[in-house]
């Protein structure tokens, strides 16, 4: 009988070695995940912590209070603004390209898709560095627009590829049904295709938003010293050995990321990601 097999397996006494192995595995995982986080939390409340003490000598919320007054909020505000603008711009740019590629109505569609993947295929630093040279020539260095543009280089990969997968998942027959009943191609797109793609739009928006919020290399190269986003702020703070400020910033930066990832889980379907890099 098939039903009795499972309980038997479960009742089998576990070897001691298995138990030890599992405990060790859990400990390593906990250490890897909780360890750095605990360090961050500890540093963010450490008002005085001199080597070689295991724990800070003086604990307080001095640095947490400082962020409510200081330039950290300005940086956070700027980060969110840049991420929002980048997300909207990347979606607006990606949706027509993705739709065309998905319906194979775009000449050179596959080539275009690969082109958008290229910046991710190479190490980021040289890509950004060469972009920075161009941006200086075009007077975009140190500007808000420049940072948005450099974020779009990375962000478009997510939107273009996700949206292409999303549009491919929508059957052509639902569009044909609308056209058959007299709807124009434009109307069909806005009344049928785009509403059906909505979960995908949200999913790729979240991906780009998180990417933009956390982007550091490009922002530092193009934006510094005039455009300071939160990651750049964190970097400067830790350079000045203000590890407390850096820790507080990191914790603040984590909040939108975690919230959005939870949201993302609701909208992102496996098939959207499975399409990445496939033509």
């Amino acid at each position, binding site marked *: 009988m098939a039903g009795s097999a499972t309980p038997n397996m479960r009742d089998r006494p576990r070897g001691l070695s298995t138990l030890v192995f599992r405990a060790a595995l859990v400990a390593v995982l906990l250490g890897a995940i909780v360890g750095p986080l605990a360090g961050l939390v500890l540093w963010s409340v450490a008002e005085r912590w001199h080597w070689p003490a295991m724990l800070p000598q003086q604990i307080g919320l001095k640095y947490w209070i400082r962020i409510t007054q200081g330039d950290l909020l300005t940086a956070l505000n700027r980060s969110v603004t840049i991420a929002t603008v980048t997300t909207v711009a990347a979606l607006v740019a990606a949706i027509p390209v993705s739709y065309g590629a998905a319906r194979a109505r775009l000449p050179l569609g596959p080539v275009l898709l690969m082109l958008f993947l290229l910046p991710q295929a190479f190490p980021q630093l040289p890509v950004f560095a060469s972009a920075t040279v161009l941006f200086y020539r075009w007077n975009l260095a140190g500007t808000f627009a420049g940072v948005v543009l450099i974020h779009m280089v990375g962000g478009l990969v997510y939107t273009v590829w996700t949206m292409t997968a999303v549009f491919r998942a929508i*059957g052509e*027959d639902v569009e044909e*049904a609308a*056209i*058959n*009943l*007299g709807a124009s191609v434009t109307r069909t797109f806005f009344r049928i295709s785009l509403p059906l793609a909505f979960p995908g739009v949200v999913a790729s928006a979240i991906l780009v938003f998180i990417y933009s919020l956390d982007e550091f290399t490009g922002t530092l190269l193009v934006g510094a010293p005039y455009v300071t986003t939160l990651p750049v702020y964190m970097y400067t703070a830790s350079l000045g050995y203000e590890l407390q400020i850096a820790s507080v910033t990191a914790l603040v930066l984590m909040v939108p990321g975690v919230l959005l990832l939870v949201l993302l889980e609701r909208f992102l379907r496996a098939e959207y990601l499975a399409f990445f890099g496939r033509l």
Partner: protein
Amino acid sequence: MDVRVEGLIKRYGQVTALDGVSQTFPAGALTAVVGPSGCGKTTLLRCLAGFATPDRGQVWMGDRNVTHLPPQSRGAAMVFQSYALWPHMTVFENLAFALRLRKVPRRDIERRVRETLELVELDRVPDIERRRPRQLSGGQQQRVALARAIVVRPQVLLLDEPLSNLDAKIRHRVRVEIRALQRRTGITAIYVTHDQEEAMSIADMVVVMEGGRTAQAGRPEEVYAHPKSPFVAEFLGSTNVLAAVVDLDGRILASPGGTLIVRAEDIQLMPSGDIPPPGSAWADGEVVDVLFLGAGYRAYVRIGDEVVMADHRTSLPRGPVRMAILREKLFTFDRATPQSNR
């Protein structure tokens, strides 16, 4: 309104989907286009709907040449195999979509949606207008798809394998309903299916297609009784194809020179040694298997190297048997010229 195609040719790369199809689909009739997959029936329908443009040939609807008209202005509504309902809209919105496009006044939209839902017998489903497609059964979705097409009162209705996603029982019921609906509305309907039984039971006229061409067209009874080619004979009904000829005594002899085609229901089985009825061709064989089909039995009879399906009212023991077929029920074709000799 007659629908007519003339010399339709459509190629996809190396594949010729339509190889010169000329056919009239009479006004007010339900014409079934039937054939195995890849015979071009779906391409033909897409050319009628305007989703495919023929490489050569013309499409006429009444006295309008619509060959180069976009799908939007052809006045032919289509029912899709997948139903292609819009999942983000309610049933009401699905039906109202086309009416809103046509600037029908709001009050009239509500009335026409209600009437159309009555027509497809969905009006008794509670709260149907506010449901979404995925909250409906397959049969109900099929009816919504039909309703969405006829709510615009099209002159031509195109149906692409509309029942292939339903299970057998519902399929039979909806089939009868589609036929009744077509009769009541007098709409010119073109119905594509791979199921020959479905085609013959539903249609006023069947068009059998093979390899991008029309193999035969006519009333179902006529095409069934008088197939013009081995392909048509073989495609319609439960058919046996034998490489054989009939000699002067009426005896069926295996021979590579001829093709005999006979339907399972036209074979009479009798004890070997019995005298076959006058005017029959006959052969001796051996029952190798018997299947119970509900209404009767289907015997598998080995004759020489071939196994023949034969229907019988009662069950049969395995062993020697004689089979006889009335000459007029036997289609004989020469191997060289695949034309009926009768």
